């Protein structure tokens, strides 16, 4: 007989409990009458979407060691692909979402080719150039993208269920569940990639390209794969972003967004799946909620200072990011529980 209770390790139970809690977030928030529920859920959805980008960037940067300052470009391509497919080609959202991911992945693959020769800073500038060029190209391809006006009035995201009525995500609360569902799938995928031979090849390339090649890792294949996979994540997230806002314009995808993505990954913890989630949430919520704190909002611009201070303090005191700190704390708690159990 399989011993099912062996599955009930602390980490699995915590994960399950956590999942239960995030599913109830709208309900819990609804209990507090003072909170503007729609706005907060919109922010949380935004955090979920950025978390998808951060997951992908962490695969590329944290695991494969390839720096990218151009992820806002991938994000934009995903958003625009999805917007054009649903408004101009009248495709349903359920096809536009993977379509955006796949097209972005193909472009990521192409960007991976020059990256074969570039490392570190030089790669950063090449990807930065990519990120800067995409908004310009969007402006230039006016007929398709609507130029500086952007694309608006995107249809609601929906999932058709054959004979049953389709699920339509109209309100912020419904959209929260959509973003959450996609994020859970993508997290699962990321975890599996990390633990597969592909993930190990990424780590080997990060630690030493020459050593990896000597062990038979095909650099061309795995570097381009890393870029394609990372771009796929950003593309999916871009599609979700476009349908969350129902409208996009080139100004949404500046270089500062790319820098934000890198910051999320580093704050959360490099080479950690959960770290990407922590970092994305922390930065998104801080950026949007700090202005609303009572003391901070009294002084103009103080929130930028507070945000900067938090960045510096985090990298000073948690060099392995939030995920590193969480892991340490968890090990400490686990040890204590074990001691208690032995004592019983």
């Amino acid at each position, binding site marked *: 007989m399989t011993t099912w209770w062996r599955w009930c390790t602390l980490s699995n139970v915590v994960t399950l409990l956590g999942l239960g809690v995030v599913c109830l977030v709208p309900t819990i928030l609804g209990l507090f009458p003072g909170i503007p529920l729609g706005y907060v859920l919109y922010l949380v959805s935004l955090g979920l979407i950025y978390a998808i980008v951060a997951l992908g960037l962490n695969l590329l940067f944290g695991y494969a060691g390839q720096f990218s300052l151009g992820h806002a470009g991938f994000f934009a391509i995903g958003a625009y692909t999805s917007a054009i497919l649903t408004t101009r080609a009248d495709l349903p959202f359920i096809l536009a979402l993977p379509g955006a991911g796949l097209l972005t992945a193909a472009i990521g693959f192409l960007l991976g080719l020059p990256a074969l020769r570039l490392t570190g800073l030089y790669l950063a*500038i090449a990807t930065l*150039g990519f990120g800067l060029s995409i908004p310009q190209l969007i402006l230039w391809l006016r007929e398709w993208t609507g130029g500086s006006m952007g694309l608006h009035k995107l249809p609601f995201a929906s999932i058709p269920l054959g004979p049953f009525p389709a699920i339509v995500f109209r309100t912020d609360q419904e959209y929260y569940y959509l973003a959450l569902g996609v994020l859970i799938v993508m997290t699962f995928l990321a975890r599996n990639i990390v633990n597969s031979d592909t993930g190990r090849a990424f780590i080997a390339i990060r630690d030493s390209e020459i*050593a990896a090649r000597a062990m038979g890792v095909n650099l061309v294949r795995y570097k381009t794969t890393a870029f394609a996979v990372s771009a796929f994540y950003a593309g999916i997230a871009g599609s979700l972003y476009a349908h969350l806002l129902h409208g996009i314009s080139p100004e949404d995808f500046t270089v500062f967004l790319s820098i934000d993505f890198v*910051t999320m990954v580093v704050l959360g913890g490099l080479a950690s799946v959960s770290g990407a989630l922590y970092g994305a949430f922390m930065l998104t919520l801080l950026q949007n909620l700090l202005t609303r704190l009572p003391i901070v909002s009294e002084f*103009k611009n103080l929130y930028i200072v507070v945000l900067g201070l938090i960045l510096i303090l985090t990298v000073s005191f948690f060099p392995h990011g939030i995920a590193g700190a969480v892991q340490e704390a968890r090990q400490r708690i686990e040890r204590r529980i074990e001691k208690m159990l032995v004592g019983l």
Partner: protein
Amino acid sequence: MLELPWAQLIINGLALGGLYALAAFGVVLIFKTTDVITFAQGEMAMFCAFIAFTLITALNMPFLLALVLTLVLAAMLGVVIERVVIRRVSTTSLINPVIATVGLGLILVGVAGWVWGYEVRAFPMPVTGPPWRVGTVVLSQLNALILGVVIVLMVLLFVFFRYSVIGMAMRAVAQNRLAAQLMGISVNRINALGWGLGTALAAVTGILIAPLNYLDPLMMGDVMLKAFAAAVLGGFTSMPGAVVGGLLLGIMDSVVGFIVPELRTTIAFLLIVFVLVVRPSGLLGRHEIKKV
């Protein structure tokens, strides 16, 4: 060849490239000595420009005195930042100090916006007078001044790093901290010096760019991006490289901007990527051979 006003475009490009090179110097210098890529350089330049602005307008100081005072203050600011923030972070990993500088940049923008506000101001001109003309080609005196400062700074910094004892110590620290320390170099002091000098360079950048564009907390964003690109194009560890990269980028920008203004940045960066694919360490950078 296309019918273009080539001479004027190239002069405009050189003027623009001078800005990029100037802004790149500080980044390259800090990277050369402390191995940290700073994203706060533009904000430092902005902050120092505001300090100079206050000295000149509120305290009625003459321009040169304000410049010297700002340079001193900037150097002190750099040393303090190294001591308080960077030294604590730089031992942990390579990327953490970079994020710390992003945070620093945010703090500087926030404080500047808090103290001086977000309205756009005009910065007093360091030189006044009609632009120089040769035939149909025009060059403003301010742009000429910037180009002159860039050339002088390039030569000074090049000589400093190549021949002076402190410059050599700085290069040694950048190459190998431990070995440098064993040779009797105080690594902490060299790092502080690097940040002091880098921030003083930021002050020069800010004071020269502010009269050309305008003065506000977000004035350096675009210039800094191009400065990074210029530094990388030139090789990132070389001062002449930063100048060559900056001037080339400026000329590309000006010529491409004349033909297809919408795709200015796109084509400039495509060319950079092309150059980097051919020479992966930039034009004047030395290719490092890594050992396992």
